[in-house]
């Protein structure tokens, strides 16, 4: 067992305790200690958004959060987006609109898209593009992502 700081947190609804060094990022702990490898490291400096998660409901880059900061807080990652085997409508629409190719940016884009739709159920194209400006994708050219988010918003508004 490693020595380190003990951190108690709620990840995707589950009470989780982990030990880490104080200089480890939340992204490093999620991936390397907890096996939650859905969040990706693209840049490690908050520019690409591939590591996007929510912390107490707020969208953040997990590479710019110290893991020890998560003490007592709610963390939501891509692993918690689907309901068991049932994909979240955003996931289904990303597939249906071919809004991904290599997939490295996809977890971050899904989390950022969900954060957008949680606060704005009917975003314009421009609002979607600004809300996702912190998530870089080098494959799709973004149009398909915008379409997928719009389609999801429409679907969720009907529910």
């Amino acid at each position, binding site marked *: 067992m490693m020595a380190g700081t003990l951190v108690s947190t709620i990840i995707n609804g589950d009470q989780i305790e982990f030990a880490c060094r*104080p200089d480890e990022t939340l992204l490093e702990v999620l991936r390397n200690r907890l096996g939650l490898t859905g969040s990706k490291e693209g840049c490690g400096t908050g520019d690409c958004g591939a590591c996007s998660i929510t912390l107490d409901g707020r969208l953040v880059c997990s590479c*710019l959060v110290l893991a020890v900061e998560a003490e007592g807080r709610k963390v939501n990652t891509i692993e918690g987006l689907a309901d068991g085997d049932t994909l979240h409508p955003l996931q289904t629409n990303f597939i249906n609109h071919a809004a991904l190719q290599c997939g490295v940016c996809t977890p971050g884009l899904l989390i950022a898209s969900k954060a957008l739709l949680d606060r704005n159920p009917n975003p314009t194209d421009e609002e979607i593009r600004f809300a996702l400006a912190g998530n870089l994708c080098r494959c799709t050219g973004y149009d398909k992502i915008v379409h997928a988010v719009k389609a999801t918003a429409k679907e969720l508004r009907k529910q």
Partner: protein
Amino acid sequence: MKYQTPSTTKEAAVLIKRERGKAFVLAGGTDLMVRMKIGLIEPDLVVDIKHISAMQSIKKSASGFRVGAAVSAAKMGENNALKKAWPGVVEAANLIGSDQIQNRCTIAGNLCNASPAADAVPALIAAGAKVNIVGPQRRRTVAVEKVITGPGTTSLAKGEIVEAITLPKRLPKSGDAYLRFIPRSDMDIAVVGAGVGLTLDNNGVIKSARVALGAVAPTPLLVAAAAKAIVGTKLNKAALEKLTVACTAACDPIDDMRGTVEFRTEIAGVLARRAAKIAYKRAGGK
């Protein structure tokens, strides 16, 4: 590295003062964590100020607004009273980075990171904002423009921490605005930033003004000559021309991949003019 979460500003100041190694304040971490990642700094102590209650809220009082040093830019954008009183300051704060960054970054951090291109700083200077600083021994209050002394350096002594930034009471018939130029639509560092705050008299004549520029010198600048150029006018063509000349004269920029010296100097005048027009309109001027 040690990590501490003090519950008072004084305690935080003492922790930093007593640390023999390198100590840093952690607010949103959007600059600090980047500097750690790329190996620019290796902290021995990080003091997380987000558990200090005096730093966590935006408070409105008879003397204006007090924005705690741990308040995120996103929270400033969600505060309608602040937005209504100081739209230029909030717009500038909300220009910093993506939504992910907005949810973490703070204007106090933006100030203390001391980038010449910091977006919030010219807007704060134009607003006449003050900084509440707490040290191990004493408190002091200084104008925002007195904090940054050069790229990455501040006038804060070791152990001194920004507790809050205060904005004066919004006077009747006054307005503020901040504009920045970047070559993209979002997510870039200012090539030039310009903030203007002004107050009109009953006839729509500018009674007082403050003009500040960012990214055109080693520090954000308060340009007194530019303010002087528009005071006593209704922002007519001649006044705007004088404002432009004063801003251009104040510029001492660098060439870099974002813009040349010539471009920055020219754009400083253009943005100051446009920001002045917006502030004038917000103040009720016609």
